[in-house]
């Protein structure tokens, strides 16, 4: 099914437009994407690999057990950035505070998976496949979403893009998706540095003449992508509105996502990894290990929203992590693998300024297995609500199979 769809689209309207170096091409593509007068929406997925301590991101200051169980790593009250009477942001998330104040940041507490696994490997797998405790699922939920929801006239090679050397599981599957390490070097590496794309042309004529079926259509998509990148040149777009991205790998990924969004190439789902959250030892509080990681996270997201400015009306960022960490600190100043964590939804169309998710409480009898923050929001419900509320998903049947959705949290509309 996918093949015929892709072959058809190649030969259809998009194929015609993209032949030749039509200077209007980019504008027309943008127009086509807009559909009925709106610009295309983009969802940015950020995976905090290693299981982030949600209690250090969105700190439950109003829960006495937080202070009781974390004598060494609780964050100093004076430094915390109060959100409401119950929760506060980690001081190093300060760059996100203006987003909260403007109603663009919606933290969701106590999100997680129904799976009881405490293995990073399994839990990441489940969160990306969207099928907890089912290992044989080979594709990712974001790919299934893209495959099932065709945007009219919008078959662009940039619809689903992961920034990094490899395609993550969440984007793996039958729908076309790209892994891009660097926008500036995507394509055929030319031997000569004079800007003449002769090797690219040689391979293109080779594939135009000799390839058939899926190989032909995919190659053509690839050469279109190279041309589109060359015309739009997103990789050299400077950050705008005074935005300054951290020089970290994650910061660079966020900048490239912004560049691709601004180039109007039809980016619908973007993905980036941000690691280093497995803080078993010396986690730190307001300073230290986790603070350093949160600093990178917040500065990159803040730069991204500043850079995109009004375009944030069409963009939502969703953070996720495979599970949370133990309520009680361990003997080495860190936290061990837990259950629920906190995630963040950020965007111009998000009803932010409220902490979402039912707070289960940190008292021992309120915890999962007496140890961990209990899950009150299934991650599939949160992801599904974002797909529906932001991207306008018509149905989630194939995206999170076998899951009966809970009532929405009310993040949108």
């Amino acid at each position, binding site marked *: 099914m*996918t*093949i015929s769809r892709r072959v058809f689209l190649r030969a259809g309207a998009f194929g015609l437009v993209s032949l030749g170096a039509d200077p209007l091409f980019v504008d027309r593509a943008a127009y086509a994407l807009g559909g009925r007068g709106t610009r295309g929406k983009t969802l940015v997925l950020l995976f905090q690999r*290693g299981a982030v301590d949600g209690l250090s991101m969105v700190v439950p200051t109003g829960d006495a057990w937080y202070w009781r169980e974390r004598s060494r790593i609780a964050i100093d009250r004076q430094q915390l950035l109060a959100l409401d009477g119950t929760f506060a942001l980690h001081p190093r998330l300060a760059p996100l505070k203006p987003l909260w104040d403007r109603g663009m940041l919606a933290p969701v507490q106590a999100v997680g998976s129904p799976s009881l696994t405490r*293995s990073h*490997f399994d839990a990441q*797998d489940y969160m990306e496949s969207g099928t907890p405790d089912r*290992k*044989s*699922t*080979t594709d990712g939920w974001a790919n299934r979403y893209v495959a099932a929801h065709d945007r009219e006239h919008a078959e662009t*090679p940039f619809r689903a893009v992961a920034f990094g*050397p*490899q*395609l993550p*599981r969440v984007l793996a599957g*039958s729908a*076309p*998706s*790209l*892994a*891009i390490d660097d926008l500036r070097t*995507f*394509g*055929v*590496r030319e*031997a000569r540095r004079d800007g003449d794309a*002769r*090797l690219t042309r*040689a*391979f293109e*004529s*080779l*594939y135009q*003449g*000799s*390839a*058939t079926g*899926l*190989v*032909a259509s*995919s*190659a053509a*998509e*690839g050469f*279109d*992508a*190279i041309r589109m990148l060359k015309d739009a040149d997103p990789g050299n777009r400077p950050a705008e509105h005074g935005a300054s991205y951290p020089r970290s790998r994650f910061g660079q990924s966020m900048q490239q996502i912004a560049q691709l969004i601004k180039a109007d190439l039809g980016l619908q789902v973007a993905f980036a990894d941000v*690691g*280093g*959250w*497995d*803080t*078993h*030892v*010396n986690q730190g509080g307001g300073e230290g*290990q986790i603070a*350093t*990681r949160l600093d990178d996270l917040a500065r990159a997201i803040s730069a991204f929203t500043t850079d995109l400015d009004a375009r944030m009306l069409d963009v939502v960022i969703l953070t996720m992590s495979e599970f949370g960490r133990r309520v009680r600190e361990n003997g*080495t100043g860190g936290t061990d693998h837990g259950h629920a964590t906190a995630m963040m939804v950020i965007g111009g169309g998000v009803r932010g300024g409220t902490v979402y998710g039912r707070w289960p409480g940190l008292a021992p009898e309120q915890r999962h297995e007496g140890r961990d923050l209990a899950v009150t929001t299934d991650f599939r419900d949160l992801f599904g609500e974002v797909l529906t509320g932001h991207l306008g998903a018509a149905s989630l049947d194939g995206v999170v199979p076998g899951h009966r959705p809970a009532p929405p949290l009310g993040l949108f509309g």
Partner: protein
Amino acid sequence: MAATGVVRWIEAQLAVPAVGDPARRDLERQLTSLRTPTGELLAREAEARRAAVARADSGAARPDATRMRQANPLRELAVEYAGLTLTRQAGSGHQLAEVLADFWFNHFNVFQNKGLDRVLLRDYLEQAIRPNALGTFEALLLATARSPAMLFYLDNAQSVAEGADPRDALAQRFPAMRNRRRPAANDPRMEQLRQRMPQGPNENYARELLELHTLGVDGGYTQDDIVGVARILTGWSLDRRTGAFQFNAWAHDRGEKAVLGQRFPAGGGREEGERLLRMLAAHPSTMHHVSSKLCAKFVADVPPDGCIDDAVRAWQQSGGEIREVVAAILRGPDFWSPTSVGAKVKSPHEFVVSAVRALGAEAARPQALVAQLARLGQPLFQQSAPTGWPETQEDWVSSAALLARMNFAVDLASGRMPGVRVDLDRLVPATADHGALLDAIDSVLLAGAMQPTTRRAILDEIAALPDAAAARAMAVGLALGGPDFQRQ
């Protein structure tokens, strides 16, 4: 190769006594990754983990750096072993045997980056997969079921009978404890112990054993069968110090079980697991499922019914002799039909191995190829899902993937891949006669299957290159990166 030549080649390839080219044995004997005893690797692994914790405890290291250093002493060996695997596949005279070993590893997939599997993977391939890749399916299945790598990967190592007493486990691990007074069942230390101990059967391996390894997802089993299989295999575990298989009698469920209508009476031990595996190996659903995967590998993404029928018949007649089943597929009409020839697109792994083989490239540091393979989207031993890598073109063909193949081909042909030496002089002579050059490339790299359109495109491109060696490198790069070479 003419058809008769191919037939003779296949017969010779299937006649080899075992996987592993004797011509390469001396070379391989020098490799640390092959020579180091498993127990020593496990000790090093444990040591590295302790050291990482100590280092992090001193506050010296950032978490990412810590994790990297923790993996390092073993990572080098893991990469060397992955390099060896690629070298064998690209250089062995026993090509078909290597293809089958890879097929079975993928069928019984294990993920190298899950904990101890970093260490155990080598023995899995050397002792379970390779020695059995040309034997009977039953022997292969039993070998994988007993392999510590698989037991660890799919969590059977921690699958214990409901209510199994952890004190018995400790007594088994530390014999000296037997003489000491056992803590009372309500001792608070017991509560701690219980939290750390595995609790109850784990169905993970049981499910994949039925769904992926034997019967297939539509093979006619139920959730109750999965539970039965899991209970029968409780106690199948490993010794974490030696990396050897270990049956923990204390963890085994001695109750009565039933699987696929067969009764397994109460009181059974390790032998009932072996009976179960033999039963699964000989089950008609297994024959059909595994034959169908072999046909998908060798013939077409959607395996023709005729191929599956031929394979199943050979399976029944030979009692599951892998050689016979594969021979039936390769002799069958579907393998030779014009719709099958060139119908399959190479996976990135097949692409890299075939390119290196076609060029006769010598990898002094095969690690470079391992890294390239990861960049092309199929990192060796790194498929985390138990399904193994997929076999269909939809999973491998995408715009970015094809561009990456083009870059790989050009780098390889022009000698720009570090650690890999290509001697094009041995392959095709550099000549100003581009027609003769293309003839040679067609015959050496594409077995005469170069399309006229390919030929014309390459000729056009190299026409402007005055230097014969440069034109040759360009032509070889385009041929390897072009569409004709992407087909099997």
